[in-house]
């Protein structure tokens, strides 16, 4: 086999890998997770927001374009975490009057069996930088400057559900 053929095979392998990932990803995003009896229709690939146990809205990737990006440098590895405030994401779909300072906001990753519970007061304070950073594989991870959410072990990677419960 000539060197030219070998190089072409290597390029082909790379193209196939990229194509497979993009293809599978497109298929996955097309399959809608909306329950049949849900009052709100979830767009494929969106993250559901439940208010007091009822599906209230779906947070879609398109929503991110409307939000301002913020950033901070994490103390653990000194990396810049850049993304969108959870506060802004929630206010895009919920009215501020429905969110009291003691309202509980739970950000969940079903696949990693992890969650973080915060009060609206904590989420609403820009100094806490409670925000979603985009991970390398295109999922959202909840990061913050809050002491109980400021290292990787405490972050919520692969977020797929947000619950809001009024006390």
């Amino acid at each position: 086999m000539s060197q030219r053929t070998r190089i072409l095979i290597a390029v082909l392998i790379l193209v196939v890998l990229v194509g497979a990932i993009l293809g599978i990803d497109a298929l996955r995003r097309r399959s809608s997770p909306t329950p049949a009896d849900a009052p709100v229709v979830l767009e494929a690939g969106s993250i559901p927001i439940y208010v007091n146990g009822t599906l209230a809205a779906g947070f879609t990737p398109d929503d991110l374009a409307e939000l301002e990006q913020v950033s901070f440098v994490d103390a653990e590895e000194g990396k810049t975490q850049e993304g969108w405030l959870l506060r802004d994401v929630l206010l895009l779909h919920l009215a501020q009057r429905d969110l009291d300072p003691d309202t509980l906001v739970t950000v969940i990753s079903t696949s990693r069996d992890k969650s973080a519970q915060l009060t609206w007061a904590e989420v609403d304070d820009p100094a806490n930088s409670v925000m979603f950073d985009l991970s390398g594989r295109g999922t959202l991870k909840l990061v913050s400057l809050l002491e109980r959410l400021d290292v990787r072990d405490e972050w919520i990677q692969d977020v797929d559900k947000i619950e809001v419960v009024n006390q």
Partner: protein
Amino acid sequence: MKQRYFSTFQLILLALFSALVVVAKIALRLPLQLSGHSGVFWMALVIIAAGVVPKRGAASLVGLTSGVIASFLGMGDFGALNTFLSYTAVGVGTDLMLLLLGSPENLLIATLAATVGHFCKFVVKWSLGAITGAPVGFVALGLTKAIVGYIVFGALGGLLGGLTLAALRKAGFFTYIAEKR
């Protein structure tokens, strides 16, 4: 006595490169908010390792060892298994490409092998996310950006590694090593 595949000297060299991969990941930072940008440093190191120890499995051993070190240091955002498998995939992917293409001293081969090797890291991260049911690719643009980042920085790392190997040959490093044997 049966001849060992890697000599002790070669194993020490590979262990050093493995440690350097982890150190590079921790200490060298580029102010780029792009996925996979650290590939510039560590793909260069993997390619140099594969050139300095020209045996099949050298890159895999560097990937495996650096994966063990990085996992124990708690590196990576997605846990120890993810870190270990993704680092190992870099080495195995690079080795498989070098098996197909030949010596990494050729700049084109080094670049291509490093590109595929580095992309294997992304494939592992993405696959583990997909298997565990994570909403991978929630932001499609983010996924595309990450793919491009891994390919570009992997290629740059490979090119840097290839150039370093050429510089080492020019400086007489390989002659020195051959004499030491």
